[in-house]
């Protein structure tokens, strides 16, 4: 057991993500983003999201990650206590590096999305020869 005790935090709700066709709250997932020489990795906490309900979109430099949580309770259930709500997780980032779109990999384990974005090979510097006139 580690010494640190986890503090409870309310989920951050997204103020405006454009209007969605489905009503319901939209939350900002907590993320870790780190970079190595070859790739950028993003980890996002998305509890309750099945891998088939995750969508990742990279358009130009804009990376959009979203995931939907399916209805938790059956119709017969009545709430006695509700401390958290579920809905959609949504977050957008602007990437500064060029990404090799064809080799992006995404996995979901225990409600955490792991997205690996390999950097595109840098355009090799070209040497321009100046010819004498």
């Amino acid at each position, binding site marked *: 057991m580690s010494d640190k005790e986890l503090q409870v935090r309310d989920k951050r709700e997204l103020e405006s993500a454009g209007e969605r066709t489905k009503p319901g709250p939209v939350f900002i997932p907590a*993320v870790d983003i780190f970079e190595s020489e070859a790739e950028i990795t993003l980890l996002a906490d998305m509890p309750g999201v099945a891998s088939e309900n995750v969508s990742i979109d990279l358009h130009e430099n804009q990376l959009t990650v979203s995931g939907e949580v399916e209805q938790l309770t059956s119709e017969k259930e009545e709430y006695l206590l509700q*401390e958290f709500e579920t809905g959609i997780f949504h977050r957008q980032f602007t990437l500064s590096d060029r990404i090799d779109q064809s080799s992006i990999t995404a996995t979901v384990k225990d409600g955490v999305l792991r997205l690996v974005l390999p950097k595109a090979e840098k355009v090799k510097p070209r040497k321009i020869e100046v010819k004498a006139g």
Partner: protein
Amino acid sequence: MTIIKWRPGRSGYRFDPFSEMQRLQREMHRIYNTLTDTREASRPAGVYPHLNITEDEDNYYVRAELPGVDPEDIEITTQGNDLIINGERKIPLEGENVSYHRREREAGSFKRITSLPTHIDSSKVAAVCKNGLLIITLPKAPEVKARQIEVKPA
């Protein structure tokens, strides 16, 4: 460690002016909360993890969001009407040659105790953790379940 017992103020279906006043007070409290806080969640205990508790005829259901927690690191115990959820969230190191841009996810241990309104059949409690969502099903004890008694013609 903060432990907050949760006791729902439930009364029967009989008209009871005091419970009506309590209900009104709760309602006022809820309205006040919705004015000051946009979230609907009522009376959060302030202890990790947040819980949702529901019931149907036969069971209580306790749900908690535990992303990135290995099911093997979760320990669930019952004691009378109390449910104890213990565990640890580990975040493994990601190699030495990485530089972090953002670090919002946290690791640490947690313990939460909550009370259920009635007795439960502790031998039949089941728990699953799916996609980082823990669901504990606690069957109500047979003596507290509503039973319909058939009236036979004489």
